[in-house]
């Protein structure tokens, strides 16, 4: 920046004073930058005004004009619906950013300039929300647990907790193989598997002469996602291990099926919930013929457009019905 500070234009973070960053690639060679930017509401300035309610409000209002960490509910639902229907996400980078009108007016008037400006704002906001929905909806995965920060939570700072019921590898053991004096101890959170997939508990010595246990082993071996592995140290020791990601998915499906649920989203049991209405409508969309040429919607692109248009029309609809904490986990 060779322009004097007083002559610099104000950006989204205020008047830029300085910035520094470094370009990097991650393990999948995706380019990204790490950097610091100095300008606008710097931490020192925030600290100086934090004790004054009026100044603090002004400062936060200024920040809120540029930063938003909310996504309208319909986009959360659209994201969920896309996953539910296995519709591929669009390639956002190939869609052009909507261009503003030649003359922009930030107002509520009925003149053509104001109307055109508002139309562009809606189109632009939709474009932005679609990108956030497709590319910035975080779901916990293996990388969240890497490094020091991953030991205490999501290292990507996503605030909601990990779903320990379905995303953590568990050591699965045959109940009858557990000695009586250890059964109580193993009812708590199970010990995680090591990187090689070996059990961290080497004291289990199942009695393979027992017909009852053999019968139970046969039953467990029929469960998808479970496999018997031979331990090199103990050739006669058989364990039930969740061996890989695909098996984990099968195991999850089995567990959900046992509960009478399908893999994927679990619609709230409350029939008045807007979510249920949306899922019903999605099914109807799949069955509806197109108006112009009577050809049914048959591909993901057309279905996504139809779903998107329908859901955006519910932009201002309030979610009603009693949504419990358990129901909220669908998102």
């Amino acid at each position, binding site marked *: 920046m060779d322009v004097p500070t007083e002559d610099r234009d104000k*950006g*989204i*973070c205020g008047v*830029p004073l300085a*910035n520094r960053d470094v*370009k990097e690639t991650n393990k999948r*060679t995706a*380019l990204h*930058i790490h950097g610091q*930017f100095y*300008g606008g509401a710097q931490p020192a300035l925030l600290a100086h005004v934090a004790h004054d309610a009026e100044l603090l409000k002004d400062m936060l209002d200024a920040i809120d004009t540029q930063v938003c960490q909310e996504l309208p509910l319909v986009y959360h639902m659209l994201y969920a619906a896309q996953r539910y229907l296995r*519709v*591929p996400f*669009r*390639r956002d*980078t*190939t*869609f052009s950013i909507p261009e503003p009108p030649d003359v922009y007016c930030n107002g509520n008037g009925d003149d053509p300039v104001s109307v055109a400006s508002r139309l562009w704002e809606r189109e632009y906001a939709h474009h932005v929300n679609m990108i956030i929905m497709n590319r910035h909806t975080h779901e916990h995965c293996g990388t969240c647990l890497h490094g020091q920060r991953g030991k205490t939570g999501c290292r990507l700072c996503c605030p909601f907790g990990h779903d320990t019921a379905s995303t953590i590898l568990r050591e699965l053991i045959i109940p009858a193989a557990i000695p009586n004096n250890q059964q109580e101890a193993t009812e708590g959170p199970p010990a995680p598997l090591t990187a090689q997939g070996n059990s961290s508990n080497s004291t289990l010595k199942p009695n393979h002469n027992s017909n009852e246990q053999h019968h139970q082993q046969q039953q467990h071996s029929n469960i998808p996602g479970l496999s018997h592995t031979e331990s090199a140290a103990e050739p006669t020791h058989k364990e039930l291990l969740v061996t890989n990601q695909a098996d984990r998915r099968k195991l999850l499906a089995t567990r959900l099926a046992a509960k009478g649920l399908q893999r994927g989203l679990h619609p709230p049991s409350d029939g008045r919930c807007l979510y249920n209405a949306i899922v019903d409508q999605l099914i109807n969309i799949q069955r509806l013929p197109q108006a112009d040429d009577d050809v049914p919607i048959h*591909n*993901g*692109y057309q279905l*996504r457009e139809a779903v998107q248009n329908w859901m955006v029309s519910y932009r201002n609809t309030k979610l009603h019905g009693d949504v419990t904490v358990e129901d909220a986990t669908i998102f």
Partner: protein
Amino acid sequence: MLAMRLSHPYTGPNTFPATCPDEYLQALHGQGFAEQVQGEFDCSEQTLQELALANPVAGALAFDALIENVRTNLF
């Protein structure tokens, strides 16, 4: 999209990659393999991944242009 265009050799001012034909954009916007292959343009996921792998300089140039654009117009 810029990286993909930079990955192809220049053939003339009125042809791809100097211009972006509608057929090319349709192939890029396609959701399945059948939609991602339009005429001479193959924008299937495998082809794009191979293209990016074979042209890392194009990807770096496109990323640099993006970052400079953000610095200049947003910050």
